[in-house]
């Protein structure tokens, strides 16, 4: 409760202290500021109330349980990771985008703990040597005029490869009606006319709804991701490749990717074949 003579009105005189009440309560306030705040608290009912409020809110929030993962999600995530690894290998170090927060500058040398500290020095040296080989050969390889460097590969393509890796390791769903897919993604879909459709689903790439259609073609299972034109042309490197060659191609390990624009959308064709074979398949459709 406030007492006569205490400052009770207006934010300006309280603002510096009110914004430090949380840190004071949490033990995160610097020593010199603790003394100043405690001196202020001794004569300010409003800030004492504010401190009580901070404590009550923190305790209420802290009592909230963390809900478990939705059923099946953990298994799906692990499957996707294995698919990503197996299809590429997209090995650690391939993606320069995830450098946020406490992430340190990239280093090509794997930290010893990641390899298991119990390993002997010879084992660690052998693994490092193998990793150097993989780093130089396992990533995207340079291709013709429609290719771009791995470091500039569109995030959309990475996301599609991740979805592909996870899906092909699972039982595929029966394909819904084309109209249903179009209604869910919001744009027209042009399936490959000369391939046998075996499955289809809607997924999300870069936060946008995307249709995925799986086909049997040339004794292979290939997946066509149909994305909006806006998403397809978002990446400048992909735009440049399409300008030059009419398509963009890349490979990860034994998995090929061909990207080309349609009239109202864009297609990413992914399958367990070289990009040349996929490009030939696309040209027949």
């Amino acid at each position: 409760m406030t007492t006569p003579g205490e400052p009770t009105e207006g934010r300006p005189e309280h603002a510096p202290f009110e914004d430090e009440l949380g840190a004071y309560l949490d033990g995160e306030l610097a020593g010199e500021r603790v003394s100043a705040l405690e001196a202020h608290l001794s004569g300010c009912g409003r800030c004492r109330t504010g401190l009580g409020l901070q404590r009550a809110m923190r305790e209420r929030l802290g009592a909230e349980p963390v809900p478990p993962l939705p059923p099946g999600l953990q298994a799906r995530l692990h499957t996707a990771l294995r698919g990503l690894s197996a299809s590429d290998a997209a090995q650690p170090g391939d993606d320069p985008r995830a450098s946020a927060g406490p992430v340190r500058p990239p280093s090509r040398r794997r930290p010893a703990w990641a390899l298991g500290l119990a390993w002997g020095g010879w084992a660690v040296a052998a693994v490092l040597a193998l990793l150097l080989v993989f780093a130089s050969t396992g990533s995207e390889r340079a291709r013709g005029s429609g290719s771009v460097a791995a470091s500039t590969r569109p995030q959309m393509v990475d996301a599609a490869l991740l979805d592909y890796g996870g899906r092909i390791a699972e039982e595929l769903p029966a394909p819904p009606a084309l109209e249903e897919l179009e209604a869910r993604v919001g744009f027209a879909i042009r399936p490959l006319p000369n391939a046998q459709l075996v499955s289809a689903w809607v997924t999300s790439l870069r936060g946008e709804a995307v249709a995925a259609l799986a086909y049997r073609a040339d004794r292979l299972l290939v997946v066509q991701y149909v994305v909006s034109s806006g998403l397809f042309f978002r990446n400048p490197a992909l735009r440049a490749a399409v300008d030059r060659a009419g398509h963009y191609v890349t490979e990860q390990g034994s998995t090929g990717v061909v990207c080309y624009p349609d009239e109202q959308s864009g297609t990413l064709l992914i399958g367990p074949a070289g990009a040349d074979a996929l490009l030939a398949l696309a040209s027949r459709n």
Partner: protein
Amino acid sequence: MPASSLDDPESPGRLILHRFEALATPHLASLHAFARRRTGDANDADDALQDTLARAWLSFEQLRDPSAIRAWLFSVLRTVLAERVRTRERRARLVPITHLENQYDEWAASGPGEPDAFVQRITRDELRTALEALPEEFAVAVELHDLHGFSYREIADITGAPPGTVTSRIARGRRLLVALLGEARSGELAGDGQRPLPGMRGKPT
């Protein structure tokens, strides 16, 4: 890397993947809960978590200290969420901060009231709704500290904000949260005959 080499449990790629999964798996539920609150949609949260794991795996070698895996995964998730258009669109509909600050001021200037009793009666649904309506930068700071237990220093690393900004965001975020909750429960509070909390209609007596 040939796919077959990953079938070998002793292959370097498989061992590193196992190491990554062993470090990341304990934090999946927290990451998903954070993404669920930030996106407001379960499917979006699933997608964000999948993107996060993929990016984290691809830049795994940048993680120098395995004990920092949790903060590091949250920082990657923050980047993923920031790129999602839907989050930005949702945040554009939020209540203006000034409105909430004024409500808190009105209540705080009139006396202490009973914040403990009020806060303890808040239901889970009310809390979830208020957190989703809270402006993004405040909600993130409060959630990371009070729900997920990160230190101020770690929150500064995750969000890229200076430590002083984290300090003010947590304190202000809690105040704004109470103002939002008070607004949502103003009728019940008035019926209790308690001193009005922020958001109550009319001037406190």
